[in-house]
């Protein structure tokens, strides 16, 4: 939260009410109503045909694969799948909408209900999910505005949540959860920046404890998690300021401006369009037979929640790590590969800690490093962890070696040798070094003997500095304590 947020009395006075509408592009081979291929970043208007460019006389034919994908999503969020649903036309004029209407679902969507559980346990119920086609893109340039219809007709599912999200953080968490689900299902890239996963937010405030919802604003143009949180915080405080000043919040569609970090009014409710919905006469009703749904159900992969629970139970890792590791299907499978390939003696929680810590930190700092294109391969990483687990090197040295593996590549054992990081556990060597330091630090030894036991850390520090710091800390502690104990007796 911003500083202003902490100072504002909002938390005591109002409750934010947030509902999200998420559009996911389904990654089917072809578009929703024609056989044009869909692929990102092609030459403009290269993936178009009479159907998706709205020529006179053409008719839509529903892509069955897209329907299967949509069913997967409905099953994954435990929603009700309507055995009969209806496509409808949503009508408005815009150059990137070639037919002058979008084929979508209106009063009879294929899916209703369901929900998503957040890490803290809160359940966000969904209103509905429906299938629809994407519009094209208007491309603005110095020479004028052009229309690219490559995107027109790409299948979308729109996932509408109930207004039960109560903070920007929750909104962001909810979105990440949805994204994890669509990626687990393999039905959508979940890429906000490229627009394959898009979000509009409805925000209103109500007096704390009240059941009556306030006037609501819809925010558009949210193309990153950061922008979503920022825009919601901004919008909540904008509305709170209005209410505090005794003003009315106008029902509006507002646009997030990432450059100025503010939302601005796009249109008022009075100007809102009448979409003149009516059933699409070119498509029959969509019938989803039980057999089709149950065979898709049987093919669903293990989803994040189930996987998380299994990790907790089977691997004895902590809850937070289980959430991180299952937030991404590829990450979870990377982790499980490490678990499967490890030697018996390597404890799984250590792997979890290192993956969630060092590995992800380094990976996220490097855009080219993905779980499909690993900078540090799993077997090398395991080798390093074995060294740490066997106390061949210290944790600290392990981190240093990992950084070197990231920077230079190479084998951890070679790097440990080269950097002389091997941990010394031989007590006779340790004892020799400790004796030298104690000999040089008479004053501190006297202090220690007179009862100031804090000085112990000084001896540890001195030994590590003098010797390069690769003594096994546990052995070092033991040896030092023994030596000081002896001096006490003298």
């Amino acid at each position, binding site marked *: 939260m911003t500083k202003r947020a902490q100072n504002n009395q909002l938390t005591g006075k109002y409750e934010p009410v947030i509902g999200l509408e998420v559009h996911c592009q389904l990654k089917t081979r072809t578009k929703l109503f024609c056989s044009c291929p869909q692929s990102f970043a092609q030459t403009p208007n290269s993936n178009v045909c*009479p159907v998706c*460019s*709205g*020529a*006179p*006389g*053409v*008719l*839509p*034919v*529903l892509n069955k694969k897209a329907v299967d994908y949509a069913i997967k999503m409905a099953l994954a969020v435990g929603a009700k799948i309507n055995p009969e649903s209806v496509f409808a*036309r949503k*009508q408005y*004029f815009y*150059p990137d909408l*070639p*037919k*002058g*209407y979008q084929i979508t679902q209106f009063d009879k969507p294929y899916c209703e209900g369901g929900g998503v559980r957040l890490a803290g346990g809160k359940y966000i119920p969904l209103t509905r999910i429906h299938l629809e086609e994407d519009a094209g893109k208007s491309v603005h340039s110095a020479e004028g505005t052009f*229309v690219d219809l490559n995107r027109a007709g790409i299948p979308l599912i729109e996932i509408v949540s109930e207004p039960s999200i109560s903070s920007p953080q929750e909104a962001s968490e909810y979105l990440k959860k949805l994204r994890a689900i669509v990626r687990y299902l393999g039905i959508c890239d979940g890429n906000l920046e490229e627009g394959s996963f898009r979000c509009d937010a409805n925000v209103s405030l109500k007096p704390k404890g009240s059941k009556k919802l306030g006037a609501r604003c819809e925010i558009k143009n949210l193309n990153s998690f950061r922008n979503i949180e920022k825009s919601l915080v901004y919008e909540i405080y904008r509305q709170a300021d209005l209410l505090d000043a005794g003003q009315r919040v106008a029902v509006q569609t507002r646009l997030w401006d990432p450059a100025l970090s503010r939302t601005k009014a796009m249109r008022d409710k009075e100007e809102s369009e*009448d979409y*003149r*919905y*009516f059933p699409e*006469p*070119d*498509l*029959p009703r969509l019938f989803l037979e039980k057999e089709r749904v149950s065979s898709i159900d049987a093919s669903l992969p293990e989803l994040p929640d189930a996987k998380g629970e299994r990790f907790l139970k089977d691997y004895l890792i902590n809850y937070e790590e289980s959430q991180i590791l299952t937030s991404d299907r590829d990450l979870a499978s990377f982790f499980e590969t490490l678990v499967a390939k490890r030697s018996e003696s390597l404890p799984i929680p250590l792997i979890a800690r290192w993956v969630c810590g060092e590995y992800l930190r380094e990976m996220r700092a490097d855009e080219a490093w993905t779980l499909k294109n690993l900078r540090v391969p799993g077997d090398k990483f395991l080798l390093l962890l074995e060294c740490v687990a066997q106390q061949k090197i210290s944790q600290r040295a392990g981190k240093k070696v990992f950084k070197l593996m990231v920077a230079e590549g190479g084998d951890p054992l070679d790097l440990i040798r080269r950097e002389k990081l091997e941990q010394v556990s031989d007590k006779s060597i340790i004892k020799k070094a400790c004796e030298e330091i104690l000999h040089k630090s008479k004053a501190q030894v006297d202090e220690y003997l007179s009862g100031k036991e804090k000085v112990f850390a000084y001896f540890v520090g001195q030994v590590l500095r003098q010797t390069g710091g690769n003594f096994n800390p546990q052995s070092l502690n033991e040896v030092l304590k023994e030596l000081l104990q002896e001096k006490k007796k003298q």
Partner: protein
Amino acid sequence: MTNSLGERLWTGEEIVSGVKEDRSFLDQVLNFYCSKIKKEGPEINCFTFFSESALAQQQSVLRQRIEAKEDLPLAGLPVSVKDNIAVEGMPLTCASKILENYYPSYSATAVERLVKAGAIIIGKTNLDEFAMGSSSEYSYFGPVKNPRDKRKVSGGSSGGSAASVAGGFCPVALGSDTGGSVRQPASFCGVLGLKPSYGRVSRYGLTAFGSSLDQIGVFANNSRDLSLILNAVSGQDKKDSTSSALPPFSAEKHESLQPEKLKVGILQDFLKPASADVIESFAKAEEFFKNQGAQVQDVFFPELQYSVPAYYIIATAEASSNLSRYDGARYGFRSKGRLNSLGEMYKQSRSQGFGEEVTRRIILGAFVLSEGYSDKYYQKATKVRKLLLSGINKLFDKYDILLSPTTPTTAFDLGSHGQDPVSMYSSDVCTVLANLTGVPSLSVPCGVSEKTKMPVGLQIIANRNQEQKLMSVSSFFQQGFC
């Protein structure tokens, strides 16, 4: 056989069998139609596109296919196609300024099937703009005249197609029927016109007007030719999700009609608005069926009084949506005026590109779908539609076919409905029922009015997917009547 003008012309069947026997016959046929179209076509104004070079090209392709011994059930059959159906290589104007120079990049499924069967697309025919009208006067290219009497309208909206067959410019034609647009001009011009069951012929490539009502229909001078062409164009198409999965209509199967077993219902509600001369001709047809031993009964269907308003609500609602794509943005006419905004581009291009009747229907359709009015109009109309469907289903439990005049009057004078669109709309009173309920319906010539000397049409309606029965009855009637 002779056509309605008394000219001795080849039937479609004669052309097909002749072309197969004698190669030079194809040239003879095409030369004949070509010179007739050039000579008499412009006055009737039934063609929006006719090109000798396009014809020559098709002719040479066909010659090669005949030599290659391809199976060509329609070899050399000249067909005219309503200019709201896409034919690759020919313009698709819909008789509208907004599509004046538009060439489609594909052919309609029905056209593809005709061409595959060896037919020759002889030209594109004039119509009411976007098929909206009942007289073929609302065309950017001027009105179509009735070949029978050039002071009269040809009917509409497929007036050009009806006139092309009636005028002897081709033996068969494709039209489209949303509320009577094949049957009414067939009746006015004295030819046969069939609107098949909804879903029988693919709508892919037919410029949409009222998608839930539109159906490609066929014109001919006799039932055999009508069957021949319907056989070629019908059948499921995976490009049209509303096309029906039934086996395609077959011209080979001939139901032997036993008239004494035929149960005929006379739709009395459609006689009420009819003029005396039409009723007189219709009474003769009714008499004919009785004399042949058919069981003829009067039928009353009170819900029919709501069919025209319900039809105009549904048709205009769908039309307002279907015509949104003509916006000047991607293809077609864009206003040349100074356009300061996107909204201005839309407004100017559409206001200047669409004619009066189309504009009227778009506005009406947008209104009946708008928030706060949709319940009152569009929703209510769909309820009426359901009532009509259950009503007609009940009738077909009792009757094999239903009969009525195709139109309340014979062809009216050009220009006579200019100021009163509603009086024009009411001329669809007998025909919209078949579109609202999806059943097949056919208009067959039923004599000539004593008063106007213009043809009268008999409308025969059968239950869904019973085109076969419709053909047998019409063939039986056409052979026995007169």
